[in-house]
Each structure stands twice: as C-alpha cells, then as structure tokens.
C-alpha cells in the first residue's frame, strides 16, 4: 500500500492496486461513526458503442449503463439491498456520463458489507423476465427527470453542445430505447466493462487500512475473473454544435442556459480544471461586480448558478437561471465571457479572494465522509485528491487563468438554450 500523508489536515490516504487490477483507495477517519464505500466502474451512458469481450462491435440501446446499475441489485430470490439492510447499511447507486458507482454506508459489520458490495457488483444474474419488469420502473424514473425543467434544461444544453456524440441522450436513455434492452445485452456489457481492472473501490471512515484491505483481498480470491482485457470504446469526437435551441414547457417563467464546450484534449490537466473553475468564480460568483450588475437589473435572480464539469474526454461549463429577459441574459453572459481574458489583470485581488473561498470549500468537504470518498481521484487524473487540490489551488496565478481561459472561452464554442412557458399562461 502506498501512503500519502497530509499532516496539515491530520489525514492519510492509502492506495493499492490488487493483482486482479482492482484499485483500492482508503482514507481512515478518526472519531467518525460511519464507514462509506463506493465501488466505481468506468462505464457510463457515453460508452454505448464498444468492442465486446468476444471481439464484436456492439451498439447498445441508450441508457443501458443505468439499466445495468438497476439490475445488478436484483439477484436470484433476493435483492442486494436486503443484505445491506440486514447489516444496518443503506445502499445506493448512480450512473453518470462515464461512471457507474455502487455504494453503502454503515456503522457496523464493515466486513459483511464490503463483501456484499463486491459480490453483488461482480457476480451478474439477469433474466429476461426481470429485465422486462424493470422497464416500467425506469420509464417512471425517466418521466420524473423529464418533468423537472431545471434538469431538462441542463441536459438539453449538453445535448446541444455535443449533438454528434453519445452525450446527446439522457443518462437513463428514453422510454423507447430502454424497451430494446435484453438480458443478453446486460451480460455483454457486464463482461466487457465490469473487469476489476476497470474498477476502483474507495473506503472512507472508521477503518484500519491494513484490515480492510485484507478483507478486500480475501474477497477477490473467491471470485473467478476472465483475464483482463483492454476496453475498446468507440466514442466519436464531437465536431458539431447547435448554437441556439428553444422549446416550451409547463413553467412559470423563462429559463436560460449558456453552455461553453471545452477542448476535449485539455480535460486531463488538473490545472486546467482548477483554473477554469476559479475563472468562472471570478466572473460569475456573488463576489463579482458582474453578478451585482445582472442581479440589480433584474436580469438574474437567486436561481442563477454555474457549473464546470471536467472529465478526461469532455469538459463544459453551464451558466443558467430564470429570467424575464432571456435576450439580455444571453447577451450579457456572452459579453462577460468574451471580454474576460483581456480584463483579467484587474482581477488579481479577486483571484486571491476566490482562492480563499475555494480552499474553505475544500476544508468543508473534508467534514463529510461521502464527499471525501467522491473526491479521492482516480487513474484519469493521476489520483489527485481533494487534499492535493488545496495545494494546487494555492499556486494558481492570473497567468494560468489567462492561458487556460483563452483556450476555453472561444466564441465558436458558446451556445444558448431557452425554455419558454406555454404562451397561454
């Protein structure tokens, strides 16, 4: 096990890669009641097209990664959740564009719960009858998301930034696409992606690192895995972009989003990620004069927010809110973005302030077992974790912001998206 020490926070992080390829990251938290573990597979909604374990090109129905996540719990005669529950643990799972995570949190029976987690995710059991039954549940889940105008706006904006890639469909797929999923599809996806070498187990909480690692190693000996294979994903590089999109929903007021599509080559660089995050804070946080101007003129309100999502293969920012003046919203946000880099020299003090703010937010994350576990890094970013990030943030300069910002903010990469209320309102 490799030990990473962070004496300024009294924290240590341990990392080990097992013989079968599984990466284990452990962070003991003294004084906490809870232990939280997440087993994450590098497989998400954008991994729809791939060369399968038996060397065939597969194009799967949209939403299969999420469908698989649901079906993993359902075993022969029981549900994995029942076992967790027996040991007082609560369990859950979620699927994103490029990851599927299974997790539990417990205050007792760590060994039993870890075994349950590894067993249920690594041992598939599907049949067509059970697969068909799940379709009704997931259809309702999809309808629930579609009913949420803010989520709709967010995902629709992403789809317009990446119309020619697998990011162009909702993570859960559509009511229509999930109807096509069969148990054979699930087995194929599981065999291809759920290899230990494509997984990472994070354990944070009241644990002894050596002891829990031993539990994991013992458990892995019981499973038979196919030899590790390189995963071949077929992900078209997005070249197109839809600059403007509008539609109507049952909403009271107009909702607007401005999207910025980043260069997919840059997402691997942690300094790029942190610089762009700080830049957006300088431009749009409540600390900024821009925010004050837009707020006091009624162009934005408390619903205003922004978000930068940075991954190995794609990165984008979304700036969104409710507004009575959609045109002014879009024009002003674009203007602020386009002028951002040339104005940066005036923002040296602001950068220091925003860095303080970010460092404080990172310290806040350290309080939470779950949030810590979700910020321990992985092989996509060389395992840079939240403790490392604080040091990196400290060292970021206005020049970094200029350099990365000018690569990020390009007129031809900015889009807008509007949801209008039905006119009879």
């Amino acid at each position, binding site marked *: 096990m490799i030990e990473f020490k962070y004496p300024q*926070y009294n924290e240590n992080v341990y990392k080990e890669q097992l013989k079968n390829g599984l990466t284990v990251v452990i962070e003991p*938290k*003294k*004084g*906490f*009641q*809870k232990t939280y573990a997440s087993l994450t597979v590098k497989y998400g909604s954008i991994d729809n097209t791939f060369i399968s374990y038996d060397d065939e090109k597969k194009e799967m129905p949209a939403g299969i990664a999420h469908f698989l996540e649901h079906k993993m719990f359902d075993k022969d005669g029981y*549900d994995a*959740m*029942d076992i967790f*529950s*027996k040991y*007082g*643990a*609560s*369990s859950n799972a979620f699927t994103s564009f490029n990851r599927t995570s299974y997790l539990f949190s*417990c*205050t007792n029976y760590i060994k039993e719960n870890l075994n349950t987690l590894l067993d249920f995710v690594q041992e598939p059991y599907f049949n067509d009858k059970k697969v068909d*039954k*799940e*379709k*009704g*549940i*997931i259809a*309702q*889940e999809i*309808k*629930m998301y*579609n*009913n*949420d*105008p*803010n989520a709709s706006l967010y995902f629709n904006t992403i789809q317009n930034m990446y119309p020619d890639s697998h990011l162009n469909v909702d993570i859960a797929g559509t009511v229509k696409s999930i109807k096509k999923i069969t148990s054979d599809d699930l087995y194929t996806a599981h065999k291809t992606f759920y290899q230990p070498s494509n997984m990472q187990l994070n354990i944070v909480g009241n644990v002894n690192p050596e002891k829990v690692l031993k539990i994991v190693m013992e458990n892995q000996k019981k499973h038979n895995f196919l030899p590790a294979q390189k995963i071949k994903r077929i992900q078209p590089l997005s070249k197109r972009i839809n600059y403007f999109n509008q539609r109507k929903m*049952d*909403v*009271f*007021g107009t909702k607007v989003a401005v999207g910025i599509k980043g260069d997919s080559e840059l997402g691997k660089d942690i300094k790029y990620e942190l610089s762009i995050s700080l830049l957006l804070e300088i431009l749009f*946080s*409540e*600390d*900024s004069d821009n*925010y*004050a101007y837009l*707020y*006091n003129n*009624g162009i934005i*309100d*408390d619903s205003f927010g922004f978000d930068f999502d940075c991954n190995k293969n794609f990165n984008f920012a979304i700036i969104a809110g409710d507004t009575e003046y959609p045109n002014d919203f879009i024009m002003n946000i674009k203007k602020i973005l386009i002028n951002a880099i040339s104005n940066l020299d005036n923002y040296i003090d602001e950068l220091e*302030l*925003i860095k*303080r*703010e*970010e*460092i*404080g*937010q990172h*310290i*806040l994350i*350290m*309080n939470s077992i779950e949030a810590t576990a979700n910020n321990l890094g992985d092989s996509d970013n060389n395992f840079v974790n939240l403790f490392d990030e604080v040091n990196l943030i400290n060292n970021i300069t206005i020049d970094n912001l200029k350099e990365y910002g000018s690569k990020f903010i390009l007129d031809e990469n900015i889009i807008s998206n509007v949801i209008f209320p039905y006119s009879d309102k």
Partner: protein
Amino acid sequence: MQKYISNGFSLNTIHEDKFKTITITCDLIEPLNINDFAKRALLAELFETNNADYPTQTKLARQLSKMYGASFGTNLLRYGNLSIIRINLSIPNPKFIPGNHALLLRDAINFLNSILMRPLVSNNAFDNDTFNLQKSNMQKYISSITDDKQYYSSVKLKEYYYQNDNRGKFLFGDVSQYDKINSSDEYQYYKSVIKQDNLRISVLGDFDDETLMSYINQINISNRDKIYKIDYYKHAESEVKCITEDTNATQSNLNMAYNFPVYYDSDDFFAALLFNAIFGGSSQSKLFKNVREKYSLAYYANSMFNSLNGVMMINSGIDASNAKKVQSIINEQLKAIQNKNINVDILKSVKAEMISSKKAILDNPRQSLEQEFANSLLNRKLSFEQWCENIDSVSIDEIAKVAQKVDLQTVFLLKGDNK
C-alpha cells in the same frame, strides 16, 4: 453546554474535534401567524442580502470569501405550530488554514451580529431598492413553485389536509400578500421579531466556550416576554376528500394524507416510527417492494410520518391511468400490516438500519445541531442507548396495533400524462 443568556435567548455549544469546521446556527422562533407569512419570508431573504455593515450583496459575499469561504444562508422552516428563521453559518477551523486566523470565530459572530442587529435601514424603513427587488423575487419564486411538480403536489396536499389551520398554508405566503407590504411595514415587523422571537444560537466544533461567550455577549438581545412551545395538532376527522388537478407534464403525482394521531411523546411513538419504515419509509418497505418492485408502477412511493402534527403522508410519481391501481395496492399493504403480516427478518433489518442512521447523525454537524434543536424544542432527553432500546423492543403486534390508527383523509392527484 446549554446556557440562557437572557429569557428566551439560549446558547447551545457542542464540542467535537473530528470536524474541520465550526458550524453555527441561529434560530428565530415564533408561532405561525398567517398574516405575517410574506413579511417573515421576506425578512429571511433580507437577512441574506445585505446589512448596514455590508450594504451590498457584493460586499457581503466578499466578506464571506475573506472568512475562508464561510458558508452562509437563511432558511424558513416550520415545526408544527412554530415558524423558524434559521441562519446557517460555518467557517473552517483556523487550525486548518494557512496563516494566523485566530480571530475567525470572532469575525463570524460579528458577522452574525450584523445580520441580526444591523439591517440596512433609512427613515424607519428597509432600504427601498433592496426591499423592492427581494419582494419581486419572492413573488416570482412563489409563482414558479408549480415548475416542480413533486414539491407543488406536496404543498397542495397539505393545504387540503389541514384545511384552515396555518400548518397547511404555504409557508412563504401568497403573491397578493406581498402586494400589500412596503419597506416600512417590513421594518416594523423586523423590530417585533428582534423584540419577541425566541432565539437560539448553537455552535458545534472545536473552540473555547469562554472565548465564544465573550463574542456572543456582544449580541444585544433583551429578555423575551413569552417562551414559545410546540402545540399538538388535532385533526377534525371527515370523509375522504379526493382532489384532482390537471397539469401539462410527463408524469402524475399521487399524494395521500392520513390522520395518524401519534405524537413524539406518545407511548406508541416508537411503534409508529417502525410502522412508517415498514409501510413506506425505507427500501425494505411494503410500498417499495410492491408499488415499485413487484408491480413496476413507480420509481418512488414513500411514506413520511410527522410526529408534531400526527399525520402520515405518501407521495409517488406514476402514470395517471394507474392511479386507482396504485391506491388499491397502497391500501392492501396497509391492511397487511394491520393484520400483522410483517416479515420478522425485514423488521430486524429495518431496526438495524434505523439505529445505524441515528448513529450516523453524529458524523454530520448540521444534522447533529438539528437533532439537538428538535430535542430542546420538544423537551426530549432520550440517550442514544435508550432510543435504540425503544426501537429494538417494538413488536409486530405493537406495529399492527398502531397501524390501526391511520385514517385516510385526503387524496391529491396532480394529473399529468402528456405522452
């Protein structure tokens, strides 16, 4: 430590060094008064926006950044018959930030004092620009709650269930209420809040009590005339009312309310907690296992038990065409529990999960403070061990018996289903 600084103003401190922050909560407590709903909601917003020391939103936000990303916000909450403005503030423990910031806690308490005691006022009225903008934002917010169908349908269910009681009225008031208030009305209301509301400040983290006290003592809060307490709500039983409202949406929301006269200090309170968990309050529940897993009719179908108001509410997202079917499944599951049809192993699991989540509260500073707050409001002094014992000792018979007490009163269907 629990300390009364003046009558109706208390300070509660919890020392815990496992967290890297110091978490502060300030609660302003008064009985629900429908006439003041809009004023109170606006006051919470104004607290969050600016004050005499930080007269613009930007200055206030920058002060928070200066305090190393202190997080700050206000909430409006309802506890039975009480309305609470909650001010949340947290700062990193100075130990964990570079440089010497020993006075960060002082700065945070001073900041709290600015919010509470130094509003941005001129000529006996709140600053007009600030007031008007926040008023119009609140009106927009209230009009837009229909955007969130899940939330909106739960608001409507409460409105129909509680009929004329203030507990059922939307806590942020209605749009027309706002039309009638101006910045001087709002300032008069603020003065009455500062004079009469009961106040409770809670601090959790690693700090020194005496030093904290020296900061808190600067907040000038006089003795209160009245101490406000929780009142029971007794529901007037009636025939079941079914209300359907049409909306343009991809899904329908089915919400149901049962009168369930069990309260936090009733003998069968723990049986009621378990009944709720078994019925629809956990992933082992009858509703999850049936409405979702067996019949595939919903992604979620949950029940919630409110022991301040003696009510149980169910919410679920479904296709409108299945509304009757879902209702009859819910009813069947309730009957099953009343007939003692409860699996012993599931009961054991549910108990284990409840005990585990109770323990886990101590890992979250905000939840710990919330638990302390509720206990003090309800005058409840149960130790964790006693709580676990009480949960453990509940039998199937007791659950079946308490389940007899529920009585369906209101069904609200927000009918969507555009395909």
